[in-house]
């Protein structure tokens, strides 16, 4: 999972390394780039690591880190301060049934999750937040790392249990910098996450993560 984190340098929506196909010269450059925000980050991690959207990142309290979905009744009750058990009871009581049958409460999609705001989303319906952060804030780097580490850790765990989807060498007891296994892992992730091949120098930089004593396992390196 160290690898994925290392590959998220410059978290913007473009990382063009190849020579441009065609170029037109203009006089000056803009001062800002576009921020890859909550949903795009979740989508990209889901696609790159072959994880269901809702399982990209789960927080320590069991809640989803950041996602987008229509607001369900239990989401609404949770936003009102009810804990999960109370919410189920309240839901059943309102429905006049023995158990709660959760369903759509607001027929609109909305960002949800503990790190939504830090990652550039806004919660208009449950949080009355009508504008996202204009630019990353102090907690953004930490929320980003939690997303990355959760996603990659989940993928590594799944690959270890098999079948392998991403990390071919996750089962190795030791992986060394400069090894073909390390280089393959780096190349795979560059392609899956950044949609490009790494430069040789980049491969060296990233595989050097594994230069530890005792050596990292394949899972730790992944």
């Amino acid at each position, binding site marked *: 999972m160290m690898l994925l984190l290392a590959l998220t340098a410059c978290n913007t929506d473009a990382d063009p390394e190849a020579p441009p196909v065609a170029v037109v010269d203009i006089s000056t450059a*803009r*001062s800002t780039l576009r921020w890859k925000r909550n949903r795009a980050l979740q989508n990209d991690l889901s696609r790159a690591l072959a994880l269901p959207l809702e399982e990209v990142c789960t927080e320590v309290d069991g809640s989803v880190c950041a996602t987008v979905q229509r607001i369900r009744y239990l989401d609404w009750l949770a936003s009102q301060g009810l804990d999960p058990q109370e919410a189920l009871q309240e839901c059943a009581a309102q429905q006049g049934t023995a158990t709660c049958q959760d369903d759509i409460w*607001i027929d609109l999609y909305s960002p949800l999750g503990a790190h939504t705001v830090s990652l550039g989303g806004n919660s208009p319906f449950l949080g009355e937040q009508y504008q996202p952060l204009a630019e990353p804030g102090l907690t953004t780097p930490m929320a980003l790392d939690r997303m990355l580490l959760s996603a990659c850790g989940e993928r590594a765990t799944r690959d270890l249990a098999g079948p392998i989807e991403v990390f071919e060498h996750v089962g190795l007891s030791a992986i060394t910098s400069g090894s073909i296994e390390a280089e393959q892992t780096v190349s795979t992730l560059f392609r899956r996450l950044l949609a490009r091949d790494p430069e040789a120098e980049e491969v060296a930089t990233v595989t050097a993560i594994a230069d530890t004593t005792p050596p990292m396992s394949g899972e730790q390196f992944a």
Partner: protein
Amino acid sequence: MFTLLLPALARPPGPAAAVCDVYPDEPLCSGSVAPCTLCHVLPPTLNPYGTAVLGELDPELSYSEGVIAALPYIEAADSDGDGQSNLAELIAGTSPGDELSVNPSPEDAPEGSGALYDPEFAFRRLMTAFCGHSPTYDEVEELRSASDPATLLHAQLDRCLESPTWRHEIVPRFADERIRPIASLGTCVSMMANFEFDYHLFTWAMTEGRDARELLTADYYVTSSDQGSSYPELRVHDDSAGLPYPPAQRAGISCTDVRGFPATNNAGGQTLEPAHRAGMFTTQWFLTLNTQASYLPRTTAAAAYRSWLGFEIAAYEGMYPIDGEPLDIDRKSIDVQPCAQCHSTLDPLSYAFAHYNGVSLIFGGNGSYNENRPIELFSADPAIREDWAAEAPVAALSGELIPTEPGGDAPSVVELARRAAESDAFARNLTSILFEHATGGPPEGKDQAEFRALWMGLQDGGYSIDAMAHDLIDTHAFGAP
């Protein structure tokens, strides 16, 4: 009782007009009107640029003529001392009178490969901005090997714009600040109005190449097709079956209004008959939230002006004062300076909205229309109601007086909205939404020519946001940041 023969003003009077006579194509005038803060900290206090203008005024000339004559003399100066000349700032769209307002990408910014239009960069950016995810390795490779990458870019954009991600996840976020939903008031229980209709109409008008002017001119509502697990389809509500009602049930719970009674059109539906509908200006949510119980709905008018024309009156933007205004029709003592500076524009805008209820249990529903509301509203001071009957306030937008409602005597929000939808400010404001979403920020100095071309293209292209998006991805602002 309302005369339609008063001379209409096509442009703001006074110094703002004079400035725009000299700089008609610069950002502060192009699709806009020069804000008071160009020359003032807060009127009448001058900022350094305003002071410089004052220093060049020729006492032999009229005030407006003097301003026109003076402006060229101070173009080379840097009145606010921020390192950028007054003319450079006017061209870049920043304030020459505020040292904290600077062009972040001035002409002498470092040059490099970022100054080149890069199809691969544009491809990655458009995928994230319009599809909500990055391209795959294979997709990038396909672009790199394409003989005509531009065609591939536009084909991909079409796929993004047709995706449910664009329609249901990305576009609605543009509306949050404009609709300002409050779930405590707008969901199944304790409902005063239902903001879902607002989102549906917004998304409808902004997608699938539809005419975005219908944001302000729609005489229909848009509903969601189902409550299923997949992305719902939107459709225009057919009034032949009656006005759209609020949801009867959600998550197995019967919906109620704020009093606990079953929700009806009075709270949570849409009460307006088509003749009085003006898209986002007249939804039940918009009127209930903003007008609430006010007699003269200034907040409603200001929200409409801010959300759809991009003018923040509190920041002295979009000022088109009307002679003789404000009447101070509701006796708020706003007819004296400095209040009158803004209210001479805002109050005429507000008169039209005074015929629509906000929160009301008396006239048939929240957000309903009542031609006689200003002279019947029971909670208003009788003397104020008498003043309205006697003064007969005339609504206005952008300095132009608004004719009466067909067949009635009330200023027409419908006509006001139609004119707003045709205005340069509306096109510019819509373009700003997409531009900022796609590039990550507002137009900078070097982007101004492209930005202007974009909103003019929107007008020429039938107000299709999809078409404008295609124009946008071809710009250097998008592909050569």
